[in-house]
């Protein structure tokens, strides 16, 4: 690969040029592969969009049309007004927003607690933490409902929001993995300088973990946004209902109006997609660690 006869600097230049050409070649392949996979990824979304724009007649023609003509954008308007989606959007936004705050704060604290120093019972408690996500929720659902009923929290958002402020196995574990990848020397350096643990947590750990935190925020938001059984079981007042409950209203026992179900599904999905697209840079902010790694 290397031509021995060339001078050292020319060697580096041509090697660099070769690297660039190779890189561009691989990049081209990557774009092609990604585009191919993207089609595979997108088709359910495209089909949803396409169905949402159909008329009743088109739905029942039995033919497979990807681009309905005419495109009934009015289905979206009809879907929005036939159910109280404005209120449900407000409710769901508040609900999901609170869950995100609680999840971020509690789980980053808990994860840091588990990794910062060995302590008595650490392994056992961590095992119990993981254990809480290993028990199928359907059997704990009724006892939990009875518990919340005794606390008189049923009929409100409390059973859905408050537990989010008290940690969650999935997110605590995710953050724990990420935190363990952070250089411990930084913590030590800060401690030597006399910093308290909360300061380290807030000023060292969190800023370095933006991608992981962004992921936790996004996933917990999406989880609450799309939560169906929880709100159904705990909410009794239609004024408090969420978007997913609103979506269920399109499903009669016999006659499902698919174009409206799809239209509603699309605009329920949109905010989450927009959030991700808008905040993408947080997901890919590199851990700007300089001078420590060697």
């Amino acid at each position, binding site marked *: *690969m290397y031509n021995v006869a060339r001078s050292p600097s020319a060697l580096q230049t041509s090697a660099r040029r070769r690297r660039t050409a190779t890189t561009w070649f691989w*990049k081209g392949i*990557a*774009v092609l*592969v*990604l585009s191919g*996979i*993207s089609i*595979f990824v997108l088709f*359910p*979304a495209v089909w*949803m969009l396409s169905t949402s724009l159909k008329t009743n007649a088109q739905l029942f023609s039995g033919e497979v049309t990807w681009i309905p003509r005419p495109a009934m954008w009015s289905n979206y308007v009809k879907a929005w007004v036939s159910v109280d989606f404005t209120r449900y959007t407000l409710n769901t936004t508040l609900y999901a927003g609170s869950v995100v705050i609680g999840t971020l704060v*509690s789980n980053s604290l*808990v994860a*840091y*607690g*588990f990794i*910062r*120093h*060995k*302590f*008595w019972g650490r392994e056992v*408690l961590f*095992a*119990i933490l993981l254990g809480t996500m290993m*028990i*199928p929720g*359907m*059997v*704990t659902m*009724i*006892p*939990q409902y009875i*518990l919340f009923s005794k606390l008189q929290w049923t009929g409100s958002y409390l059973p859905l929001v408050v537990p989010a*402020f*008290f*940690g969650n196995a*999935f997110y605590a*574990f995710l953050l724990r*993995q990420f935190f*363990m990848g*952070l250089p*411990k020397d930084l913590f030590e350096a800060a401690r030597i300088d006399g910093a308290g643990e909360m300061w380290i947590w807030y000023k060292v750990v969190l800023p370095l973990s933006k*991608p992981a935190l962004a*992921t936790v925020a996004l996933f917990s938001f*999406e989880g609450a946004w*799309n939560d169906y059984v929880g709100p159904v079981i705990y909410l009794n007042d239609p004024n408090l209902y969420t978007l*997913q409950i609103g*979506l269920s209203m399109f499903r009669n026992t016999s006659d499902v109006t698919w174009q409206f179900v799809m239209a509603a599904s699309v605009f329920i*999905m949109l905010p989450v*997609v927009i959030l*991700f*697209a808008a905040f*993408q840079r947080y*997901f*890919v*902010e*590199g*851990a700007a660690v300089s001078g420590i*790694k060697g």
Partner: protein
Amino acid sequence: MSKKRFRPSRGEVRESLISYLFISPWLLGFLVFVAGPMLFTLYSSFTNYDITSTFDWVGLRNYTRLFTDRLFLKSIYNTGYYTVFSVPLGIAVGVLAAVLVNLEIPGQKLFRTIFFLPRILTGLSVLLLWVWVFNPEQGVINSLLNVVGIHNTPLWLNDEHWSKPALIIMSAWTALGSVVIYLAGLQSVPRQLYEAASIDGATPVRQFLSVTIPLLSPTIFFKVITGINGALQSWVNAMVMTKGGPSDSTLFYGLYMYRIAFTDMRMGYAAAMAWIMLFITLIITGIQFWGSKRWVYYEGEGR
């Protein structure tokens, strides 16, 4: 874990207390909201609890009955099959997709958003869409197979031998949505390492194997554990798409448990199933943790 010293130093006690303080939100929440219901279900697994009318102690009857329950054993097989294939496939797909989407290529932001979609395209409508995808006559999969020249296409969800593979393929699509988690992990891989490797003449593939994977291993490990956990408990897909059929080939553990709990109302029996699942998962997870010492590399722990 270090041996308990007879007299821990004051520094150690202080450190332990601080750690406890940090995990106290979880501890508190666990004691108040989770421990009670969990212990209740454990107790009810030894009873004939049916929520509203019976709650008598029956000892180990539920557990012994489970081991002769043909459907229970079938559900373990179905779930195991599904987990064994869907988890590795999902991780391979996720990691590769994340690496691709992390490259500095034109359209990177767009691709990232597109790949995120499977994560949020959940719910009844999407599952029914997938039923259509696997449609033997008009569905996308068989149409593609026809194009490539394969005409004896399987009946997918209507055939007991192809129903699980169909669900596994669908899980690969959903796994693409986990790209976001890997992306976060990829960010902590310092660029210098790649540059150093390529100066040494390493091909992208070699870089991938020697740099990316080891530094991504904490995230991969996370996905292994949560992926196994999720696959073992997966049932909504079967409930909506195949209702457990054909011939109980997609009767997953969770689906059978749901039927016992909410149609038969045999909550005690369902609780026994739940706790067995918990222990199976704990054991598998424990093995993974033990094995992780060999291949998971935490930069922070130093090596």
